[in-house]
């Protein structure tokens, strides 16, 4: 039985003539312990799909099962409890509560399970320890580096031992070193048996995934298994075939990376996760996306 089973899921925003189809009869089945990267341009429906899988949103049509249990009709409360027990979120903007210490932030999901403060903080402390942030327990989020903040956020996502981790562009606000750190951390978590879904614009990150799902205009247009350690084949091709290179992409997901690569030009950045490899790859396919865009 698949861990996540999505059949004919649609999401429509607005009414009548003003309605937008964010997801168009999407079917997706994810097994336990997969590491799925979801790629696609802005507005392709990645985030909407993640929100529905993460039980933050409800589909307009279609059915959604987690471990065989129908969840699309659950009440708000039941969904909140499912989120608490089964799903861990990691956001691009870290989303730690600024007034709470790292320890308290990590312990937060346990509070909603009704654990005593002592037990909560103990559990959070050992989780923080596991992720190597022990000396930052009593820091406030604003006193941490980007990588440390995201590590704390991952600790928070893991504290309830969820079966699914949903990461929406987890490295979007990080420099390349921190990005690698975070991805390797996620990779370790995956090796421990947790299912991971990650939304990204960055084909480089597909190295860590076991499967890559490509989306466009609210539909899944391609779905492939990948070998560990390599950029997914389509993702590599996508760098040239898919109209990945749009202004929105620049603005939305990629601009952060542009900042960290010195002298990086936008057409190069889109295909490169890290500085070291960036130069090689960009040399091999010089200017292709740009020429496609020009034709358009």
């Amino acid at each position, binding site marked *: 039985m698949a861990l996540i089973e999505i059949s004919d899921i649609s999401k429509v925003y607005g009414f009548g003539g003003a309605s937008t189809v964010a997801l168009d009869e999407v079917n997706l089945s994810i097994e336990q312990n997969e590491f799925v990267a979801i790629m696609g341009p802005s507005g392709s429906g990645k985030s909407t799909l993640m*929100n529905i899988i*993460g039980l*933050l*949103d409800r589909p307009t049509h279609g059915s959604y099962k987690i471990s065989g249990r129908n969840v699309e009709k659950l009440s*708000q*409360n039941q969904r*909140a*409890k499912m*989120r*608490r*027990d089964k799903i861990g*979120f990691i*956001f691009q*903007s870290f*989303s*730690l*509560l600024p*007034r*709470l210490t790292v320890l308290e932030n990590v312990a*937060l*999901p346990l*509070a*909603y*399970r*009704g*654990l*005593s*403060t002592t037990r909560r903080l103990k559990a959070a402390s050992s989780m923080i320890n596991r992720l190597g942030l022990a000396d930052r327990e009593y820091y406030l989020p604003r006193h941490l580096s980007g990588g440390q903040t995201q590590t704390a956020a991952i600790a*928070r996502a893991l504290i*309830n031992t969820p079966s699914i981790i949903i990461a929406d562009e987890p490295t979007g606000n990080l420099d390349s070193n921190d990005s690698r750190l975070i991805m390797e951390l996620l990779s370790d978590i995956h090796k421990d048996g947790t299912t991971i879904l990650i939304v990204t614009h960055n084909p480089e990150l597909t190295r860590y995934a076991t499967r890559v799902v490509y989306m466009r205009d609210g539909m899944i247009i391609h779905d492939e298994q990948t070998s560990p350690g390599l950029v997914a084949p389509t993702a590599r091709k996508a760098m040239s075939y898919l109209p990945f290179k749009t202004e929105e992409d620049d603005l939305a997901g990629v601009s952060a990376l542009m900042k960290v690569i010195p002298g990086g030009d936008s057409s190069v950045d889109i295909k490169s996760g890290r500085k070291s490899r960036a130069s090689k790859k960009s040399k091999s396919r010089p200017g292709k996306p740009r020429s496609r865009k020009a034709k358009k």
Partner: protein
Amino acid sequence: MKSFSRGDIGVAVRSLRSSRSRSMLTIFGIVIGIAATITIVSVGDGIKNQIADNINNVGRDLIIVRPDLLQPTNAVSAIVNESYSTDDSLSTNDLQLIESLSNVQYAAPLSLLNSPTIKVGNQKISGIQVVGTTNDIVPILNQSLQYGDSFGGNGAGNGAMIGQAASVKLFGSQVSLARNFNVAGQNFFIRGELGSFYSAPLSIDLDFNNVIFIPYSSAANLQGGTAPTYEILVKPTNPNQISTVVAEIESSLTQAHGGVQNFSVLQQKNSLTASNSIVNLMTKLIAAAAGIALFVGGIGIMNMMLVTVSERTGEIGVRKAVGATNRQILRQFIMEAIVLSVSGGIIGVVIALLINVGLRIFTVLQPTIPWPTIALATGLSLVIGIVFGLIPAAKAARKDPIEALRHQ
């Protein structure tokens, strides 16, 4: 769940601390409301107790005969001295009639001189009441003479008895025996000095500490032959026979007045009821004003909570994403409102107690510490927190997690 509530308070205190000055300003309304309510009630209770003490000091068996039908409802105007009825419906005959009743031990008239000029040497002194009466006034008021003697020679002449406060005002000393003074052109001297009267604030009775008693006949002379008697004080032989004596006085006086009852016979318990009703009325009115302050304070809390909720939309999104149910979010924000209003309540109680001590030290008031009111006020602040926190908290709980997360 219990432990979670405790954590809730901690979380609430922390988020309120992060906007400390705003929180302090917000609870100000509650602080004022609670402090005012408790102070008003404690002062009111204190005054009632003091009046009761006052009456007990004079003796519960005192009977007061007044001209006209001076009813308790008129008691408000009775506080203001000028409205004492000086209608000459009680006469020397009435006094003699009452004195002749078998169950009456003492009877004394009180004739209030209408703003007389009081002089010591050439110096005019004001703010002292001059009352014409007889020697019986001393035992009737349960009082004794501290120095000197009562009016000489059959209660006539120009000897006077003086209260302590009046003595100080007139002569600058509590001991003023044999000193001379002048009332409306006639010379008097101090023949006796009365002990201290227990005086309650807001009492409808005269403050006898501030009175010069002159012989009834002298008072009559000063006012052109007859002394308008505004009340006759009567003490029965047996304190248990008050009602009998009251009935006797009523029937014999009505008969003497040709069947018209143009006077009233009051017992101390009437007087107590009258003053209590005034104090109660005033307490209620001022407490209502304080209640409005509390209400406004509640609105202040609601306002702040609404701002807080919209400022912390992102936080609400994160909390929901990590599994907070709507109910848990609701509870978190209600808890914040409660912490605000209850801490306002507690500060209000402390301020009220400080005011209480201050009043005891610096004024004649003896406010009580009304524990039930304090408990009520604290409970009320809790209710205010819940009631005025509910709408903002519900707003927070209803937020869509995706929308909320976008606010970060």
